């Protein structure tokens, strides 16, 4: 640690001369070249081993036939990828069914998860007694994990013993709906539970965005005689655009990564129609020991999500112009 140096100067962006001189006298001999790296080191070890290495290893696995139980793991080139796209391979049907399940869930859940929380946020975005309490109540389900949510709703949606059918019966509606075992009920259940579970989360993000919109804009709109709808359309929505983009992008990703709800509530039924991509990947890689093929699926999946996210971004950017 002999090389004592003013760190700021090393990068060329020197502070103003006066400050520089003051700092040099004060901190010479104290700020060492290694210090920034020492601060970074513990995290970088974790990040390297469990953040970067898996990316490289995933790519490597995807071009090998890798079975945890077999000693030979031959290089197979792009075979693992080709199998996902050729209709005569053994995995083709199950893989695309899981992609289809994920797409259905995402398309059905995202609009609701964007609109319902916005409604909640607009409701909460005014001053009235008890506001903090209601916000906490709507957010509460989100702090529970998917395991609790899954067990709870498997029970609530039980065709015979569940509360949902019971309440429907009380108001004179059919009380024998097979919520978790038949179509289209299984999708309705999974989407409904997810909306119930995570709406409070998106609502809190919207609330923060709403409070960044200047009250003067509303005042001005009111002066111009704008109706409530016009104020929403011309002040609220444009003001929320960046937040809306964030909510849509993160919600699409969250929905596309759905696993626990279908694993615990519908348990994949009917048949394997509600088995999602994430579920199929871990099943293939960790239960059926096809780690190579599962790694290829992971990469295709990650690329698909990247494309969707970018499309999202461009769509919203475009609208702005």
């Amino acid at each position, binding site marked *: 640690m002999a090389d004592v140096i003013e*760190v700021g100067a090393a*990068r060329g962006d020197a502070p103003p001369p006066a400050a520089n001189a003051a*700092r040099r006298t*004060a901190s010479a001999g*104290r700020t060492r070249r290694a*210090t920034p*790296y020492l*601060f*970074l080191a513990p995290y*970088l070890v*974790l*990040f390297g*081993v*469990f953040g*970067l290495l*898996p*990316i490289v290893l*995933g790519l490597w*696995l995807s071009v090998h036939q890798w079975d945890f139980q077999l000693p030979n793991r031959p290089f197979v080139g792009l075979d693992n990828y080709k199998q996902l796209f050729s209709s005569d391979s053994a995995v083709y049907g199950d893989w695309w069914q899981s992609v289809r399940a994920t797409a259905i869930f995402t398309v059905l859940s995202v609009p609701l998860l964007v609109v319902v929380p916005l409604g909640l946020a607009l*409701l909460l*975005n*005014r*001053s*009235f007694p008890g506001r903090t309490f209601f916000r*906490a*109540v*709507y957010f509460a389900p989100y*702090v529970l*994990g*998917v*395991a609790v949510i*899954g*067990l*709870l709703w*498997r*029970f*609530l949606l039980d065709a015979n*013993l569940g*509360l949902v059918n019971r309440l429907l019966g009380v108001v004179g509606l059919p009380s024998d709906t097979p919520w978790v075992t038949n179509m289209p009920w299984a999708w309705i259940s999974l989407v409904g539970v997810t909306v119930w579970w995570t709406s409070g989360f998106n609502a809190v*993000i919207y*609330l*923060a965005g709403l*409070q960044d*919109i200047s009250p003067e804009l509303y005042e001005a709109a009111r002066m111009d005689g704008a109706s*409530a709808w016009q*104020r929403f359309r011309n002040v*609220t929505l444009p003001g929320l655009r960046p*937040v809306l983009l964030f*909510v849509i992008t993160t919600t699409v990703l969250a929905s*596309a*990564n759905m*696993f*626990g709800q279908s694993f615990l509530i519908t348990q994949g039924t009917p048949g394997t129609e509600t088995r999602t991509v*994430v579920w199929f990947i*871990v099943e293939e890689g*960790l239960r059926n020991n096809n*780690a190579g093929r599962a790694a290829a699926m*992971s990469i295709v*999946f990650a690329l698909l*999500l990247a494309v969707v996210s970018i499309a999202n971004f461009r769509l919203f950017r475009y609208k702005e112009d």
Partner: protein
Amino acid sequence: MTTPTPTTDGSGSGLRRVGLYATLVALTLVFLVPLVWMVLTSLKTYPAAQEIPPSWLPNPLAGYGYEQILNNSANPVLRWFLNSMVAATLHSLLVLVTASMAAYSLARLKFRGRGVTFALIVGTLFIPPTSLIIPNFLIVDQLNWIDTLAVVVVPGAASAFGVFFLRQFFLSLPNELEEAATLDGANQWQIFYKVVLPLSKPALATLAVLSFLTNWNDFLWPIFVLFSPEKLTLPPGLGLLQGSYVTDYPVIMAGAVLASVPVLILFVLAQRHIIQGVSRSGLKG
């Protein structure tokens, strides 16, 4: 965040106010009735929970569900509870220590490679963690961590979120404090420990609580890397409980209640931190 700006019709008429509260209360029922039902069912006997249609209140009030999960060698729920508590606490501490140090370096120190390092870390925020599960399994397998405590404590701490979150906060602190400390002869470690960290208590608390919640609730990873009944955390344990008790709902709901109570208490105590953490994550977008 805490001072609401009255935007639409804040000073509405009495009738409007009644409508507002009616809506708020109806929504409260939607969000709370399922949770209340979970607690009520956990206090029923098996036959009472099998009634069609089910009755609202537990009659007789029974400790059956809790007795089943507390004296159960095949499903050691208390042990899972303890494992979850230890894992989530250690995970949260690990995130705090590693992320705060890294974030300090990236926000306040200048060094060669800083931009690249930060870009690399932030870049991984865009990779869905689920797509790294297979290679990560291989890595923990090589480390002989399968079915140990470390496997649910350590890998998740590589997440870029904590570093990103704290860096933003550290950047917002005024430079003058550090300069004053430097003139007083403090070195970087002392500035970090005695100046920056104490000023960052709210952000650190938020990150600690969010990390604890994430770890406590994690389901996908532990169901594949923990196997022995005595090693499980609560989420995979609850899955096992559902498998063994199928429709014995008082027992299953008792397990769900046990897993919910700590995070609900944490939510009540640290609500401000959780809500602020979530809303701040949105503003960055």
